[in-house]
Each structure stands twice: as structure tokens, then as C-alpha cells.
């Protein structure tokens, strides 16, 4: 895994893990607090429901007391109870009238035997024996729910029992209010629901007890419950008021919290990734650049520049590499000098051998001519004519030999060269041979450079020719510029040859100075290689910059001419190099 990948991974882990842990912790705490609040609300409502039930129970009880007092005062009812036929209808209808006056939902008036003498909710059930209902009601503690018979089948009522004396008859009054959906709805508060679970429904309404059941918090209030058994006789059982608070609100909060936490994690991750990418790019790019430059370092290619104005470790490393390259460059120059001396020695031996080979026939001819002159002077002319060919061929051989050696000589004659004149002449020559637009931009007061004029001409000719040939379709501009570097000290002169031709890919760029590498059909691949060697011979530097489709820029830095200085490698780097 690359350094950048590791950096990204580390950054993401470092960002996501804390955020996720924080989010989970928040979520857990919020859920706990909300559930706790819900439970407290349910507990409070249970207390309120308790009080409401008792209030209703008291109200029913008070109305039965009032009704009993009214009955005791009612003479028509008294006569009816005693059997007066003309008051019979009055008695039968009494409970029905009282029902509406007392705002009760059920009312039975029973005689001491438990026979219904008047019923408000079921007017025509008079005469029926139902002693068990008041007996069970009187035995109950607190509010009691009873299933009461009606013509339509029956209904549930929160019932009470009381008694009163009319004449010499003790009557039982059973009254109550309907327990229906409206009743439980009135007990409900907000999103807390109240249900009545009858014994048969208690199992369906969830496990007995309290707490969180499924998606709700449930509390139960047991209530005595009286309902007819299979034989129709009332029996006591237990029903429950179920107080339920739906946790849907909590679930909604949780979902919302989860959503926002997820959003926060995603945003943090995205920001972390961006930051990590930026940082890794910032860190790795100069390293990559250093690595790329380092990979190009070779004894033959020590013109790689490691310059940086950074003050961090990367800048230090770049400077170290630059100094190392500089030392390598100096070492390489020494090595080349040693090689040159070795080659000169070898060449001297070769020259000695070759000269001997060329001089031996001459010496032999001269010895022969001396012998003839001494022994037969009259033949000297004849023999000279006869041996002249040998002399000529030997001299020609030596001449050729001299010419050949002259071509092999790497020695440069450093002198003050008028770069402006040479550059102008070269550009004019190359430009006239094509339709390419050429420009020469020379800084005023451009110093002379220390170089071999022939080598300088060859450098410029090669580079400008390459630039011209890179133009697509022969159209474009080639610009040759020269400027002094290092400000006023003018120790370096930079020659910049720029074209807007086809340019080169990075891979091509790295190999552009290699021997025999070419992208041109029919090219030898020696142009830039020779240029690079010539530049190095002139103790200069060369750099290339190119992008596909955007042209190529070649920068050649050469030492400025200083008459007092011996030509040779200059220490340090031009400050403007890059």
C-alpha cells in the first residue's frame, strides 16, 4: 500500500471511529432519557386515572344517595311499592326518569329479595331476580366494572350499590355510568391511551405486569369485574385498566437521531477524506517529485536539480539530495577528467604507434635516399622519383591520422561567446528553412557566456531544429530567449527555447536525453543526447519541461564569461533554476 493510501486510511479511521462512538453514546443516552421520561408520564397518568375512576365512583355514589333520599320522599313511589295498582306504571318508569335526571347510564331499583322493581336502562326487565349483582358490588373495594344486561345485549358500567328505605321496605339501588370507548378516551391524556381489558382479553392485551411491551409502555390497574356466567348469574373476576404509551414517538426520535448521526458521520468522513487527500497530496507530492528526480540521476545525467524553498523535512531532503547531486556532479567531472587523462595516455600510445607506423616508411625512404646519395648519387633523382609515392602516401596517412585525432579531441576552447549573435544567426538559419514563426527575446545587457563557440552553435542548432520539427504541420512559434540569472552577479545565463508543438508525455520526457531515443521518424536519437553532453562539457545544465499538446521548453544554463576565472564547473546552483 502506498504511503498516500496508508495516510488516507489512518485519517479516515481516526475521524470515523470517534464520531461513531460519540454518536452511539448520544443515541443510547437519549433513548434512555426519553424512555425514562415516558415511564414517568405513564406512572403519573396511572395515578390520574386512579383518581378519575375514584371521582366517577364517588359521583355515582353521591347520586345514588340523592336518589335514595328522593325516593324516600316520593309518595307515589311509596304507594306503588306497597302495591297500589294506579302507581304501578309510575314505579316502572321511575328509574328511567331518574336515569336522565342523575346522568347515570344504568339504574336498577331492587326490592329486598333482589327483584327488580324498576330499571332505567332496561325498563321492561322488572320482576327479574338479580340479587347477585348488588351483593357482589357491595363486597367490592373501590370502583367496580359490571356487565349489565340491556335489551340490545348488554354493556359495561362502572357501578355502585346503595340502599334506601321507602316505607318499611329497604330498596337496593344499583347505578353506574357506561364504560365504553368514550369513557376510556376521557381517561386518556395526549398520546397516552387507556383501554379496558376484560378478563378474556387480558391475555391478548399483553403480559400481565408493567413495563415496556413491544412498541409501548404499559401499566395496568386491576379492577373488580362482575359479569354473568354461563348460567346468567353474575360472578366476580378481575378486569384491567390498561394505560399504554406508544413508543412510536421515541422510535421517531431514534430514527431522526440515527439519521442525523449518520449524516454527521458521512459529513465527517467526507471532510476527513478531503483533508486526508489534501494532506497526503501535500506530503507525498514533493516526495514523489524527489523520487522521480532521484530515479533520473545517473553519472551521465547529473543535471537533475533538487531545489526547494520549503523549510520542512521535505525541503531539507531536497536540499540534501541537491547537495548530493552536486557532489556527484563534481565527482563525475573528476572521473571524466581521469578518464580523459587515461584516454589521452592511451591515445598518446596509439598516436605514437600510429605515428611510428607513418614515420617508419618515411624513415626507410629517407635512409634509402641517403644510401643512394652516398653510393649512387646519379640515381638519386631516379630513386627519389621512384620512392616519392611512398613518401606521399605516408604523409597522406599522417595527415589523415591527424585529422582523425583532431575529430576525437573533446577539448573545448572556452572563450567569451556572443550568445546573442550566435542565437540570432542560428534562429535565422533554422527559421528561413521553414515557415515556422521564430522569435528571439534577448535581455538587454546580456553577458557573454563562457563556451566553445562551435559547441554553443551545435547546442542551439540541435535544440532549435528539434523545436521546429516538433511543430505540427510546420505551423507554430519557436521562441529563443536568453536572460541572466542570479540578478546582478550574472554568473549564469539562461537560454530558453520554447515551442508550442506536440510536446511529450512524462515518460517520453524522462527518456528524451537518452542516446538513440527518438520519437521522430528517421531520427537518430542522438540530438538531445549530444546537446546534453555538449552542455555538460561547457559546465552547464539543461532541463526539459513538456506536456503533450502544449509544447516543450528547454532551458540551458551556461556560465557567464568572467575573464579572471578559469573555465570549469561552478559550485552552487543558479538561484533561478528550477
Amino acid at each position, binding site marked *: 500500500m502506498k504511503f498516500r493510501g496508508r495516510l488516507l486510511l489512518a485519517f479516515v479511521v481516526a475521524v470515523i471511529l470517534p464520531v461513531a462512538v460519540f454518536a452511539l453514546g448520544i443515541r443510547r443516552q437519549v433513548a434512555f432519557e426519553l424512555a425514562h421520561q415516558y415511564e414517568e408520564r405513564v406512572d403519573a397518568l396511572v395515578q390520574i386515572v386512579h383518581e378519575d375512576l375514584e371521582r366517577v365512583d364517588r359521583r355515582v355514589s353521591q347520586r345514588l344517595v340523592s336518589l335514595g333520599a328522593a325516593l324516600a320522599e316520593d309518595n307515589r313511589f311509596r304507594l306503588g311499592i306497597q302495591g297500589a295498582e294506579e302507581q304501578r306504571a309510575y314505579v316502572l318508569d321511575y328509574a328511567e326518569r331518574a336515569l336522565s335526571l342523575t346522568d347515570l347510564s344504568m339504574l336498577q331499583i331492587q326490592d329486598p329479595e333482589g327483584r327488580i322493581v324498576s330499571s332505567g336502562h332496561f325498563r321492561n*326487565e322488572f320482576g327479574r331476580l338479580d340479587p347477585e349483582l348488588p351483593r357482589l358490588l357491595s363486597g367490592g373495594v373501590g370502583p367496580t366494572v359490571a356487565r349489565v344486561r340491556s335489551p340490545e345485549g348488554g354493556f359495561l358500567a362502572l357501578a355502585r350499590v346503595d340502599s334506601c328505605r321507602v316505607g318499611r321496605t329497604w330498596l337496593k339501588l344499583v347505578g353506574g355510568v357506561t364504560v365504553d370507548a368514550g369513557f376510556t378516551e376521557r381517561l386518556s391524556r395526549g398520546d397516552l391511551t387507556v383501554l379496558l381489558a376484560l378478563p378474556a382479553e387480558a391475555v391478548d392485551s399483553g403480559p400481565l405486569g408493567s413495563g415496556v411491551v413491544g412498541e409501548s409502555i404499559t401499566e395496568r390497574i386491576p379492577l373488580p369485574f362482575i359479569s354473568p356466567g354461563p348460567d346468567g348469574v353474575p360472578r366476580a373476576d378481575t378486569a384491567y385498566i390498561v394505560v399504554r404509551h406508544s413508543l412510536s414517538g421515541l422510535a421517531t426520535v431514534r430514527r431522526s437521531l440515527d439519521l442525523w448521526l449518520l449524516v454527521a458521520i458521512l459529513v465527517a468522513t467526507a471532510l476527513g477524506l478531503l483533508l486526508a487527500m489534501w494532506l497526503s497530496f501535500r506530503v507525498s507530492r514533493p516526495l514523489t517529485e524527489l523520487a522521480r528526480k532521484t530515479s533520473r540521476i545517473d553519472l551521465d545525467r547529473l543535471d537533475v536539480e533538487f531545489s526547494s524553498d520549503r523549510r520542512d523535512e521535505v525541503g531539507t531532503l531536497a536540499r540534501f539530495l541537491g547537495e548530493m547531486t552536486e557532489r556527484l556532479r563534481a565527482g563525475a567531472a573528476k572521473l571524466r577528467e581521469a578518464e580523459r587523462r587515461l584516454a589521452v595516455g592511451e591515445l598518446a600510445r596509439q598516436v605514437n604507434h600510429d605515428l611510428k607506423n607513418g614515420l617508419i616508411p618515411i624513415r626507410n625512404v629517407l635512409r634509402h635516399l641517403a644510401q643512394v646519395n652516398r653510393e649512387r648519387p646519379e640515381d638519386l633523382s631516379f630513386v627519389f622519383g621512384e620512392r616519392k609515392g611512398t613518401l606521399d602516401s605516408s604523409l597522406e596517412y599522417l595527415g589523415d591520422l591527424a585529422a582523425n585525432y583532431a575529430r576525437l579531441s573533446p577539448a573545448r576552447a572556452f572563450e567569451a561567446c556572443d550568445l546573442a549573435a550566435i542565437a540570432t544567426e542560428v534562429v535565422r538559419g533554422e527559421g528561413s528553412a521553414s515557415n515556422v514563426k521564430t522569435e528571439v527575446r534577448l535581455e538587454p545587457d546580456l553577458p557573454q557566456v563562457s563556451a566553445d563557440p562551435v559547441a554553443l552553435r551545435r547546442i542551439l542548432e540541435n535544440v532549435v531544429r528539434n523545436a521546429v520539427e516538433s511543430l505540427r504541420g510546420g505551423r507554430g512559434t519557436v521562441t529563443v530567449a536568453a536572460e541572466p540569472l542570479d540578478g546582478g552577479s550574472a554568473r549564469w545565463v539562461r537560454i530558453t527555447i520554447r515551442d508550442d508543438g506536440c510536446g511529450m508525455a512524462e515518460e517520453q520526457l524522462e527518456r528524451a536525453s537518452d542516446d538513440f531515443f527518438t520519437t521522430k521518424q528517421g531520427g537518430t536519437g542522438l540530438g538531445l543526447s549530444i546537446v546534453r553532453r555538449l552542455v555538460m562539457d561547457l559546465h552547464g545544465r539543461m532541463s526539459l519541461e513538456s506536456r503533450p499538446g502544449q509544447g516543450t521548453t528547454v532551458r540551458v544554463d551556461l556560465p557567464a564569461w568572467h575573464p579572471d576565472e578559469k573555465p570549469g564547473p561552478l559550485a552552487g546552483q543558479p538561484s533561478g533554476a528550477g
Partner: protein
Amino acid sequence: MTSRKAAAPLFSLLLAALCAGCGGPSPPAPAPPAPVYSPECWIGDPSQVVSSGAQAVRFALPGPVDPAHAPFPRSPSERIVFRHLYQTLIRVDCAGAVLPGLAASWTGSDGGLTWTFLLREDARFRDGSPVRAADVIASWTGGTLSGDRPWGPDPPESLTALGDRRVRVTFSRASADVPAVFADPGLSVARREGSTWAMGTTGYRADAPANEATGSGAAPRDRVTLSWLGPGIPPGPERIQFEFQPASDARDLVDQGFDVLVSRDVSVLRYVLERTDYDSWPLPWDRTYVLLVHALLTEGTPEAGSPRGIPASVARTLAGEAVRAEARPPRGPRWWERADGCFLRLPAGAGVGYAARWARSPEVEESRTLRIAFRSDDPTARDLSERLVALTGPGSARGEAEWVRRQLPQAAEDSRVQALGHGPSAFARALGEGSEAAYVIALPDRPSAPCEELGNLVASAGWLGLRLPGPERSGIVPASRLDLGQSLVSLVQTRSRLILRGGTPPLLLEGDGTLVYPATSPGVGTR
């Protein structure tokens, strides 16, 4: 009140004697029956008859009146209003006495197959034109008047006008007495000539609203005013304003100053007792509430032809305590138990749904709930239904509970019995489908057309035909085949009361229970 009732017959006799000497048509041979109403048919203070000519009364109706139905009434309200506008050949009073109407006399011949009516000489339409025999026949045979005629299963074979004043009717079945159908409002004589109201033959005329041109499209009305336009001075009120006030407490009608109203509501009867300006008069027992069940699907079905009985204790309680109306246990055989001569048309597929529902119904077996249905707008039916339900509850007398259960199909010891009230349309639907275990319904005690009444009952509860073999369940069958005595369990008889403001003219009670002012009775008029 008692003294007034005692004076009524005496006054009737006196009035009848006076009227006999007032002139009118010359009595043909044989002499027409004396137009004297039975004394018990007078309701109210007879002394007010003489002085009532200039009076105007407000008469509360139980429902609206549709002039388009005239002269053939389709509701109790229309029966009362139309009776004041249109006359029949004869009239039958509440005691069953046949009295002259448009006919001054009548004779039977051919052993009772042919009946000839002599029209009154002074019988006139409202426009003054004489009522001729041809007009009578035209009224009976349709012409410009729509509506079914109440001939029953034996329509006349021929109707013949003998001159202007004699109408001869020939039947295929002989009658010893003049058939009471000639007193049925369905055989009223009238003539429709484009106005809203068909032209009648009494001195009363219905006031038409100013913007009313013709009878086409006339809507039922809540208010109809009759004005006496002669001839002579009316023995009844000069102006009768009939009004129907829907959804009104009957006591409000008293407070609003109505002079006449009929009610079964106990509350208004008690209210009137508290007031000195009103009197109440009991009307004949006119309605029997029955428990309608299917004989074949219930236990303890008695022998064929024997009506179902009701335990005396149950009957006493129902009439004396359960029902908050004037009620009594049913007495004697009911008319539907004697309707052997009726032929009833059963609806197609009668009883198929009922059989499927009750013969072996998983729904009933599973729920064990049986319902006794009643019309929710009938408080007496509600009281009866609820009492029957109460009797099946624990703590009730065992014998009475068993009796109730025996009346219900598939009733078991643990079956739950409930009472269920339906609105009119829902009740009619439930009755037609037979979806409930039993129904409490009211039947008239003295229908003017018993066969028609039974026909309507069978048409609305086709499942009554289930006792017949399949092929007989469509078409016309004799009523005896249905043995309705086993399906209709009489529970109580009820009656209404007429409430009269003091000083208002008395009314006559006709044989079909209709109340009518005497001015429309030619034998009582003062002309």
C-alpha cells in the same frame, strides 16, 4: 267525560229524527234504512253539533296528505281528509250499521248476487252537477281516477247504470247483506277535471294555493284546509284545517292549540288529564301487536289450524306493565285466523333466503344470539320486544322464559336474546329477508280489506310461504294454506285516544275507524 258519552246516543237519535223530517230525496221502495249513527259512534259533546256551524277547527294529522291520491286514500291521514271530500254509496258506522251515503236506498236480488243502488236525488258534485249512475261507474272503473279498487278476490261481474239514478252491481258470490265494500273509500265517487283535487260530492272544498293550477306534480302537503261552501249551514265546522307536524312532541300540538288530535302517546294523555280545556276519548281497540315468527322452525308448534297461545301471565304483564300505551291482552280469535276466503299472492322465491339462514345456520349456531326486531319509531313494539327479551334473562320466571324461547327459531338454553330496533326501511328489508329471529309488528284490528292486508303482509314477509311445498311457493294460494295463526302470536291490543278541545264539534267514528265530521253525512246534515 262519562256524562258526555252518555248524552251522545240520545242526541244522535234526536238529530236523526230531525233530519228525517228535513226533506231530501223521496224514499224509494223499499224504504231506505234510517240514517242514524249508532250512539256509541259519536265522540265529543253532541251539543256542539248545532252551534258548530261557524267554527273553525285545527285537526292534527299523523302524516302528510297527497292530493294526487284523491279520492282513494293510502294513509290514515288521507283517509280522514278524503272522507270529508268524497262519499261512497253507503257508510258503515263503528257499530257495523249500514247507513245511506250517496245512495238513498239499495236492494239485493238474485239471492244476494245483484245489488241495485238508488242515488240520492240531491246528490251533487261540487260544481253543482248531479251525480249520475254513469259517474259512479266511471269512478269505480278508472277513467280519470287512478288507484286500485278494493274489490278483493271477488270483483263484480258487471256494473250497469239503470238510468241516471240506479246502479246495478252483479257479483259471482252472493251476499246476504249489502257488501261493506261499497263503504270503502276506495269506491268513493269523484270526478277529476284538471284541478289538484278531484271533484267531490260533499259541501267541503279543499283550498288550493294561489299558484296551484293543476294536479300534475302536486307534492304531499303538511297542511290542507277544507272550507264549507254549502249548500246550507254545516252541522260541523265551517273550516277544518288539517295539519301534520313531523317529529313533534304530541304535547306541543296541544300547546299550539290544535282542536283535534289522535294519539297513543301516554305522555300526551297524561298531559291532557292535567288540563281542563281538553278531554280525551278512547277509540276502539284498533291495533294488535303480534310476534311474527315462522311456525315450522320453532319448537312447540301447535297442531295445524290452532293458533299459538300466549301464557296469561305474560299477556297480563305485557298489556298492563310492559307497554306504555293503552293496551289489553288480545281477545278472541283474530281476523287473520278467519281469513279462509282470502287468496294471497306469494312473491317469487318466497322464503328461500330465510330457509338458508335459519334452517341450519352456522352463524346462528355459533353466535347463539337471536334478535327480536321492531320498528324503532314504534314505542309499543319496542316495549314488547324488550319485555320478551327481559323474560329470557336469568332470574325471570322459568315458564315464561321457556315460552319466549319456544317462539324463536333454533333457540337453545344458552342462546342470547336481544331486541333490535330498525328504521322503517331497514325493518322492511329485515322483514323481507327474514334475517331476524322474530319481529314485533302491528296489525289493524278491523281492516276494511282483510285480504288485501294479509296480501301485503305476505308480500313483505315472503318467508311465511315456507310451510308450503316448493311448487306452491309462487302464485296465488288460499290463506288457509299458510295457517297464519301459527306464525302470528298475538301479544297485546292497543287503542288510541281522541283528544278534543272543549267546545269543538263532535266527530263520528266510522266502521273502518275513520273520524269524520257529521256534515259530510247527508243523513245528519241540516240542509
